[in-house]
């Protein structure tokens, strides 16, 4: 289990902000940090990894203190058994894919696990290429494999998929879930994407201005417990068209577009770009096979 208590005064573009969070993460869970940019997610990550020091705080991982500002304990990042996947991949441009992985492994160690990882994330053909020649999705697979080379206890992914298109994103989500389960990791993810959060995470922590505003099961946190439909689809409003008394609202769900009817009262609360849930209770779906 990971217990975290952090306080830090941050200077941001919109003035000073006090980061003040307390949370726990159960072993083996996949937890997502969610919130607007500037809410303090990446700062929390950097403090967890030991790359940044808080003003005050404690980090206890499986009964071992990584950080205790009162007792002046601060384990350096080198000793924190963390796998970190950076938003911009951070692959070493001077090394090939395989060299990146072997560098993470260190000298004189068995490279059997590296070979295994290369298999798992399908890097076979890319091993001898330099990172600059890879696509975003390929780079992210290398970054994921590299973060796992040292068999970390905690895997941290800072918006790993935000720059990728839908299909590659889907595939990488599968890779992440696969390694999370296979290596029995405790994984912490930063994500903005609601469908990604619901698909992947066991637990969700929502942040705003450096504070935790909600935490719990992802579906509950995101829906505010108001809906209990049988069908729930998460999407984003693309367009709203007023037709006499009703509004036709176009919603993007995954890569499908769905049109929904809403009355004037309902649509007052909605705006283009809002994240929404489409739910239905009395509903009889029919399934057709597609050939």
């Amino acid at each position, binding site marked *: 289990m990971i217990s975290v208590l952090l306080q830090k005064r941050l200077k941001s573009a919109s003035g000073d902000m006090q980061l003040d969070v307390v949370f726990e993460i159960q072993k083996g869970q996949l937890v997502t940090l969610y919130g607007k940019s500037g809410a303090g997610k990446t700062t929390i990550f950097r403090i967890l*990894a030991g790359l940044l020091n808080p003003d005050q705080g404690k980090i206890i991982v499986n009964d071992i203190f990584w950080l205790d500002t009162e007792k002046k304990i601060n384990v350096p990042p*080198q*000793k924190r058994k963390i796998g970190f996947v*950076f938003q911009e991949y*951070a692959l*070493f441009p001077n090394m090939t894919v395989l060299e990146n992985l072997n*560098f993470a492994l260190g000298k004189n160690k068995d490279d059997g696990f590296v070979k295994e990882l290369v298999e798992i994330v399908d890097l076979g053909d890319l091993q001898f290429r330099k990172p600059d020649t890879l696509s975003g999705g390929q780079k992210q697979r290398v970054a994921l494999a590299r973060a796992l080379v040292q068999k970390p206890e905690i895997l941290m992914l800072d918006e790993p998929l935000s720059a990728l298109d839908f299909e590659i994103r889907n595939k990488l989500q599968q890779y992440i879930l696969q390694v999370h389960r296979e290596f029995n990791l405790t994984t912490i993810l930063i994500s903005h994407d609601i469908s990604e959060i619901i698909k992947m995470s066991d637990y969700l922590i929502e942040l705003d201005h450096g504070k935790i505003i909600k935490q719990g099961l992802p579906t509950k946190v995101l829906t505010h417990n108001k809906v209990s439909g049988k069908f729930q689809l998460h999407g984003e409003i693309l367009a709203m068209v007023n037709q006499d008394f009703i509004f036709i609202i176009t919603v993007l769900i995954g890569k499908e577009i769905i049109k929904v009817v809403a009355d004037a009262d309902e649509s007052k609360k909605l705006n283009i770009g809002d994240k929404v849930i489409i739910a239905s209770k009395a509903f009889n779906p029919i399934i057709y096979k597609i050939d």
Partner: protein
Amino acid sequence: MDWSPLILTFKLALITTLLLLVISIPLAYWLAYTKSRIKPVIETLVSMPLVLPPTVLGFYMLIAFSPSNAFGNWLDEWFGLRFVFSFEGLVLASIFYSLPFMVHPIQSGFNNLSTSLKDAAYVMGKSKFTTLFKVLLPNIRPSLLTGIILAFAHTIGEFGVVLMIGGNISGKTKVASIAIYDEVETLNYDVANMYSLILFGITFMILLFVYLVNGGYLKRFWQ
């Protein structure tokens, strides 16, 4: 024609550049990553030779290292080092004089490198030393090359500081730039012209080489 001024010039430039590289990598690293409050002061000191007349630097070094002064005397007695009117003095003066030309490119190389490279190496358990030599330096090769070449070429071109602290001792401190001045004074325009042409040619080639390498022209040519 006496070749010794040219040989001396390139010997001076080579030794200065090597020593500068050793000094500038840690200094540029510190300047790029420190949050210390004295950073602006150090940055200013490093950049001073860019704007200060070389004679000012030479003058104060001459005063400081003169054996008739306490500091110069102490160096002479304890280490047998005499920096005034000696080749060692030229090297020391050149190091100060060319310092910004080596430090600035390396420092901006570090600054332009994404900090996540450094962070990624630390999280992998790599020490600062390993990270510097295996990750940071190999990825700022163009900056290192620029620094090396600029420091080398600039040392070839220095005049005032060398004249102040080194004087004009043939075979010992008389470098090409001073020899040219010397020959012009005695109206030996032919010899001055030879020295000048050689310096012009060599510095042109050196700088052209840097632009070709850093611009990726050589790579394209080989492929």
